């Protein structure tokens, strides 16, 4: 088991993390390229940048959106905030970066990390419950909508057990293995599932607006392609 952990912490982590970063960079670059191409082709090149910016900021910091469907909104925001803070600012994680690459930054206290981890776990569980309990969400949900929440909760729960051996009913190695493996699985899934909203969300309002800006003669060209130029209405 120890050798598996070592592999996952070494080449496994390097692969998963690089896959995630390159995948997200690729997605961002492709989207930016498509936006630029679309605007080059567009007949109307004016965009309501201010409005796009405001809408984007409102959703990136969705405090003003909480009142609508309060419980769902709150649990969703808590999951995002707590999960990201713990992943980035847990002392143990930063120590790994310092050991591997020599880079480090300030850490949050372990006590706070514990609280945030528990908040994130509860929020993930609450989101599952809400999906099951709410008719519209249950009707829409696919396998991945539940699976991703579970995969998201796994590194949080196993990480908590790693940090608290006395509460851990399993061996330390087993908890650590699950923690590292599930985190790396998450890294791999981020760019290829809906979790890619990590990189796409900041640009989606721009994308929506640009999509309404067609090239001049778009309709005529479609007609020509479909050989319908002279076809009556």
């Amino acid at each position: 088991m120890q050798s598996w952990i070592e592999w996952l912490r070494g080449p496994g982590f390097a692969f998963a993390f690089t896959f995630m970063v390159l995948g997200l960079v690729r997605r961002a670059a492709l989207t930016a390229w498509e936006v630029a191409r679309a605007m080059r082709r567009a007949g109307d090149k004016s965009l309501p940048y201010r409005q796009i910016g405001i809408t984007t900021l409102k959703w990136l910091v969705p405090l003003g959106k909480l009142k609508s469907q309060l419980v769902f909104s709150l649990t969703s925001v808590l999951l995002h905030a707590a999960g990201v803070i713990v992943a980035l600012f847990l002392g143990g994680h930063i120590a790994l970066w310092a050991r591997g690459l020599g880079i480090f930054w300030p850490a949050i206290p372990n006590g706070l990390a514990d609280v945030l981890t528990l908040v994130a776990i509860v929020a993930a569980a609450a989101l599952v419950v809400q999906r099951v309990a709410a008719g519209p969400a249950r009707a829409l949900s696919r396998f991945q909508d539940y699976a991703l929440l579970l995969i998201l909760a796994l590194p949080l729960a196993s990480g908590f057990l790693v940090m608290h051996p006395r509460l851990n009913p399993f061996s330390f190695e087993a908890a650590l293995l699950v923690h590292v493996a599930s985190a790396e699985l998450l890294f791999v899934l981020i760019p290829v599932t809906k979790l890619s909203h990590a990189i796409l969300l900041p640009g989606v309002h721009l994308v929506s607006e640009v999509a309404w800006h067609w090239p001049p003669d778009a309709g005529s060209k479609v007609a020509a392609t479909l050989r319908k130029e002279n076809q009556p209405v």
Partner: protein
Amino acid sequence: MADRRKYSFYVEDKALQTTDRPKKFLEAFAAVLQHSNYFLALDAYTRLSTKCSRCAAACQLYQATGQERDIPCHRSELLFKIFRRYFTSAGALKARLWGGFTLTDEHLDALAEAVYRCTACRRCKSTCPMGIDHGLVTHLARWLLSEIDLAPKALVVATRAQLEGVGNTSAIPVPALKDTCEFLEEEFRDIYGVEGVKFPFDVEGAEFVFFPAVSDYLLEPDTLMGNAAVMHVTGGSWTIGTGNYDGINYGLFYSDRMMERIVKNVVAEVRRLKGRKILVGECGHATRSAWFVPTFCGPDAPEVVNCMQYTLEQLRAGKIPLKAQRIEERTTYHDPCNIARAGRITEEPREILKTICKDFVEMTPNRTENYCCGGGGGTVSIDEIRAFRTGPMGKRKAEQIRATGAKYLVAPCANCKKQLREICEDNGLDSVEVVGLHDLVLKVIDFGVGGSGPGAQGGQREKT
């Protein structure tokens, strides 16, 4: 072969005779993705869609029916499924390895039914955490379906009349148009005692070429008289072109290809008359489709001004003299989705109404979050679904109207007005009078002729 009521709306016979529909639909989809910018949005949306159902809470139809098929995200997924399977490499690979979704006639029928149960009001966009514009998806799906001739007959017939018939959606020939306008000029003399108010035709070099919803010439004489009165007292330079006098553009509702042709006809008329700007009458979708003028015709195309923007500008400049007596009756305002949802025209009408009405009250919610009248996206023209429009689709709007206790319900949109009148008829709101904004402006303009006319407290003029 299915009967003519295969769908909740009538379609033309050719829609029922089209064969090999999935293949033709996919060919159209490929062509549209190639020549438009929709790929960008679909690529992002299909990756982002989280199926959280927040959009359901924003949709007035889902609020009324509680049916899964009326959840905006569910509807969009019908198109996303096709896009993923046939236009993404992951979808193609998945299909090769495991089979799965294949586009069928049944799927297309379900898509058609779904996108015409939606008014494309775009209210749900503001509640989607992922920023998915379900209105855009509905808009695109309707275009694609129209390429296999699957579109409501009412929309197609009107568009045909505009592009290949008399030249406008109400099939009003030029002599009839001129007769109507002369009659309205006489009305100014008879009712208001004012001379010289004109509906000018084919004036070259005018600042504004006027494009109202052409149906206003038949159904909304007070709105048109209000427009003419404002131009008269402000000395506005305007004209109506006899080559094209219809702002309606049903292409917006079912085919970008048709929308482009109609928009280009509008611009051609402005250029023929050497006009400088397009003045759109009280019509939400006419205004929004005119905002696509630079899209289809480039940055040198004429500027687009909605008549409410012009009126407010003149009102602020003190060029519209008003009677001392304002409108006493409680008045409320309905925001047409096509001009308000993106926040483009929300304050102008309110400023005008607060100036001319003593008791102006808001509906709740309003402005960018207002509920659709229930007849948006062209569905108001589909008479066979009236029970649906004024029932589940119009329920929230009826509640909104009732809660205001208003006598005048102002809706600066020909489609909204028709739908709201039907909502009032079908929901027991008999005391509510649906009017255009310029109908009320007309009541309070002081023509300086010694107080003749019905005045601010006068009833509606008799409809012609």
